[in-house]
């Protein structure tokens, strides 16, 4: 292993050069630990070579904006997948949140901030309903959240009558940029990424999530209240989905009843590319963020290269398979 050998000092000054070396070394070791980060760096380098525009600040921020909604959905999904479950309803819940928020202002006349809180509450409630069905109704997560996918989408259509709902300025703010350059979606994505990492690493629920996903029976026999933790897990996923719904509505400047359809699969893909195991017990918030960025870089890069969106789907499928394959191969080697 190269990291075992002492670093060779070519320069007598331990100044910037060693810092740079240390940074590359750390990046390299992080990339070898996390297949997704390696894939992201590789993709980034390839795109930079193929398109001069790719590395421009404007374009990189674009990538961030494009990644944000999926990333936020995927962060919520990360809690669920580490716990050994799955949440198919995140896209529908995101759309429901946007419609509820928009209608509360447009039809009911509530103040926008209160409307946003109600929208978030709708997301939380959807997650809790799935959680109750799974934790206490003993439904498989796949079935319970499949039902919620349909229910939330249906409610979205019922409430909106199938037509887009205008959004107040407080919601469109989520799609805007600060100081004319810093996109709010990127800000929200990073903030929620840090929050998710904090929850997973530092809180009781976070540690319980890993234990439940690793061995639910052992967790139960160790005194972890598995039912309540599952409620919290699906509640978190619902709330993160709600935030994603606000960001999406902000970017579109309206609440579309069919928004975010199919996003649950991209979210699951991002989590899995990020190194989580669908069997549970493994996964990290940082990995999920990287996974979402991988998907966004591919889409962005292929757009820059004028590849048709039909082919993009093929490429994304291949990348999902390759990313997970390289991960399993590396684990098998170890």
């Amino acid at each position, binding site marked *: 292993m190269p990291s075992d050998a002492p670093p060779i000092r070519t320069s007598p000054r331990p100044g910037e050069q060693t810092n740079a070396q240390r940074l590359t070394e750390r990046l390299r070791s992080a990339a070898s630990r996390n297949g997704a980060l390696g894939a992201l760096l590789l993709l980034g380098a390839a795109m930079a070579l193929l398109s001069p525009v790719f590395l421009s600040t404007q374009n990189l921020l674009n990538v961030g904006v494009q990644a944000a909604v999926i990333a936020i959905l995927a962060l919520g999904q990360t809690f669920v997948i580490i716990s050994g479950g799955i949440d198919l309803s995140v896209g529908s819940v995101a759309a429901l949140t946007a419609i509820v928020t928009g209608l509360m202002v447009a039809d009911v006349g509530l103040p926008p901030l209160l409307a946003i809180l109600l929208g978030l509450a709708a997301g939380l409630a959807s997650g809790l309903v799935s959680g109750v069905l799974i934790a206490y109704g003993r439904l498989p997560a796949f079935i319970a959240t499949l039902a919620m996918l349909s229910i939330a989408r249906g409610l979205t259509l019922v409430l909106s009558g199938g037509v887009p709902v205008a959004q107040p300025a407080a919601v469109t703010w989520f799609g805007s940029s600060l100081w004319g350059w810093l996109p709010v979606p990127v800000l929200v994505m990073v903030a929620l990424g840090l929050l998710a990492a904090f929850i997973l690493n*530092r*809180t*009781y629920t976070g540690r319980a999530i*890993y234990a439940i996903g*690793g*061995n639910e*029976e052992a967790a139960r*026999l*160790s*005194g972890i209240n598995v039912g309540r933790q599952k409620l919290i897990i699906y509640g978190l996923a619902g709330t993160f989905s709600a935030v994603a719904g606000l960001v999406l509505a902000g970017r579109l400047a309206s609440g579309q009843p069919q928004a975010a359809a199919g996003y649950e699969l991209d979210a699951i893909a991002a989590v899995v590319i990020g190194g989580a195991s669908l069997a549970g017990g493994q996964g990290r918030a940082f990995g999920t963020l990287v996974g979402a960025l991988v998907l966004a870089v591919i889409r962005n890069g292929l757009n820059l290269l004028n590849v048709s969106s039909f082919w993009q789907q093929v490429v994304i499928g291949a990348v999902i398979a390759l990313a997970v394959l390289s991960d399993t191969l590396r684990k098998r080697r170890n």
Partner: protein
Amino acid sequence: MNEPAREKTSPHTGVELLRVEGLVKRFPGVTALGGVSFDLHAGEVHVLLGENGAGKSTLIKCLAGVYQPDEGQVVVDGHPVTLNTTRDAEALGIATIHQEFNLVPGLSVAENVLLGRPPRRFGIVDRQAMYAQAGAALARVGLTIDPRTPVDTLGVARQQLVEIAKALSLDARILILDEPTATLTDDEVDRLLALMTELRSAGVGLVFISHHLEEIKRIGDRITILRDGVGIGTVSAATPRDELVRLMVGRAIASQYPRVRTAPGEDLLQISGLSSPGSFEDISLTVRAGEVVGLAGLVGAGRTELLRAAFGADRYTAGSVSLRGTPVARHDVRTSIHAGLGLVPEDRKAQGLVLGASVAENLSLVSLRAATRLGLVDRARLERGAHRAVADLGIRTPSIRTTVRNLSGGNQQKVVMGKWLSADPAVLLLDEPTRGVDVGAKVEIYQLINELTASGRGVLLVSSDLPEVLGMSDRILVMAHGRLVGELTHEEATQDAIMALAVKEVESSRAL
């Protein structure tokens, strides 16, 4: 090395079937096998003996084609062979019966025996032929059951015989048995050993792994001893027991059951009239401070069910559980833990550990709640606790970050114990605490039990290992068919007395 074999067993004069020369297998960070050699002759039972983590399982996996050795060679019938897959091994007549069975639960016995190679006519499975062939294979192992029986309706002992029948139907000349007796009752062990003797007479070479020195004495011809992945040597099975233990652990174990008895104190755990239809009926017992109460009985007598119900893991329909006089709510693990109960479950991999998580994470599972303030976990505190537990319990692990899956069975069990000790329980319920644990780690677990009782805690010990129950318990309760059928003090308890109680009302109703 090649001392003359005892007369009652067949000497290894048959042709050499298998020879292993200087086998080395490395995993990242560990050398699991550091040079092991032994040979197996036709009509011989060759025992592999060593503590958990000594490399026995790795060696077997190299012979079964699961792992490929880094150095050394495997010689079958005088020819060096490369075993890249389990099929390669099977083709050479090497069959392995692993600790975990490879049976498909939903399928019939016949389908399992002939798994992957059922007799076919025109591409369609010929059921008549399948049942006939499977029936013949079952007859060889003395199993008289309908081959159409679903395999998951059989008990562990009969499932094991199905595995052996499957191996024999593959024309195995080399049969490797990895701890086949760990989950069997004495009666079933007798049957298995008789079958092994028969196979040996028929010229099969058997490699036998067991932690039970008595069994090894009864069936073994030669013993190859492994310690820390290195072959220490091959000795005759007539070698005295103390000598075997010394070779195995590298030191003499003063006493196998170092129980330090103290005068019992106040009543801690009281179980009164506990019933759960189908599992156990009207059980009342008391565990006092400083006391180890042994719960003996046959497998299926309801001991595990009783422990789980008392701990709140399962429901019970009548009766009550109290700790220091305070009733403990039923079917609620957290209340039980809060009241001061702990359970080391019977199956540490499925119920005791999060195998994919680190030693530190597993050690902190129970104390996680106590180390949480306002929803935030005090990680430094948990880490300190993990370091302390690793030191106190002598858990052999490279680091507290090591994945528990990579530890040996004995060290895994110490992690389960450590997880409970950190929660400071008043009474610890131990279900088969030393199953699949090597001699050295067993004694360390017994010492832990001593420390628990010396500090005024109580232990309720369920074990199918009678010498262990006798050696470690202060009082022994015997269960049969879900009922308490007797109580013995450690002075009056003997294996015979316990078994007499355990089988009293069972004998007539038990088949195999």
